[in-house]
């Protein structure tokens, strides 16, 4: 029970950390960390972020896209940024974990990308828990 409570408090701390990253950049609405198959590890969003954007179906599309992008003859795909009329979505692959950031169309894309880059050390630690033991 103690270890379970400890895990819950660690998850809450992680969510708070993600929330802090989110609120530090104007326009960022949600951050999701997921494994390479799109299964969410941790999610954090503001009220303005569409709920459907946090779902597995949305995140897992990136996995297929990244696999396809690897066949373009430009090496392994690292980042995909999609600019829509009202939103911007960034997917970054790092150490087997996918960092997904959803932002408004007004957000500065470079700042959104920097937010994802800043999460890399955190993701490095989380990746130890999600990589396949070989």
């Amino acid at each position: 029970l103690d270890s379970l409570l400890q895990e819950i408090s660690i998850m809450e701390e992680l969510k708070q950390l993600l929330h802090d990253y989110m609120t530090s950049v104007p326009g960022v609405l949600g951050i999701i960390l997921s494994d390479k198959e799109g299964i969410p590890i941790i999610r954090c969003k503001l009220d303005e972020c569409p709920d459907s954007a946090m779902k597995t179906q949305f995140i897992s599309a990136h996995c297929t896209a990244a696999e396809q992008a690897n066949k373009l003859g430009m090496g392994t795909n690292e980042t995909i940024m999609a600019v829509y009329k009202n939103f911007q979505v960034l997917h970054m692959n790092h150490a087997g974990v996918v960092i997904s950031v959803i932002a408004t169309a007004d957000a500065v894309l470079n700042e959104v990308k920097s937010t994802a880059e800043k999460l890399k050390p955190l993701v490095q630690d989380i990746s130890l828990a999600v990589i396949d033991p070989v």
Partner: protein
Amino acid sequence: MLKPRVLTDVLAQVTTEGVDSCFLFRSDGTLIAHYCLTSSGTDPRVGSAIASNIWALYHKNGRGSLDEDRLQMMMLECDEGKIVMKLINNLILCICAKQSVEMGMLGKKCDALVEYLEEPLKKVGNL
């Protein structure tokens, strides 16, 4: 009518300073025109089919999960290069460059081409 040679010459104009190739294709992946500075291992038709697949995935995602939002541009960063794709009427313009090219420059080149080709391609009608 569309003049393929002229279109290829226009696409060739962005292939400077690290930009390797430029493709124009339909949303179903059918290649309309392309220009490659160097011969790469990937067949341009295969490349355009893959790129259109990626575009279609995100386009569908936007329609389904982001309140029917419309995809306008995509930027991909890979180990050995960068790709920018932008919608131009019902076609997709795709520019591929080396890793050394800054994404902003690639985006600007794409914007310039889209602005230049938008009106003439509208006159050709449904492609």
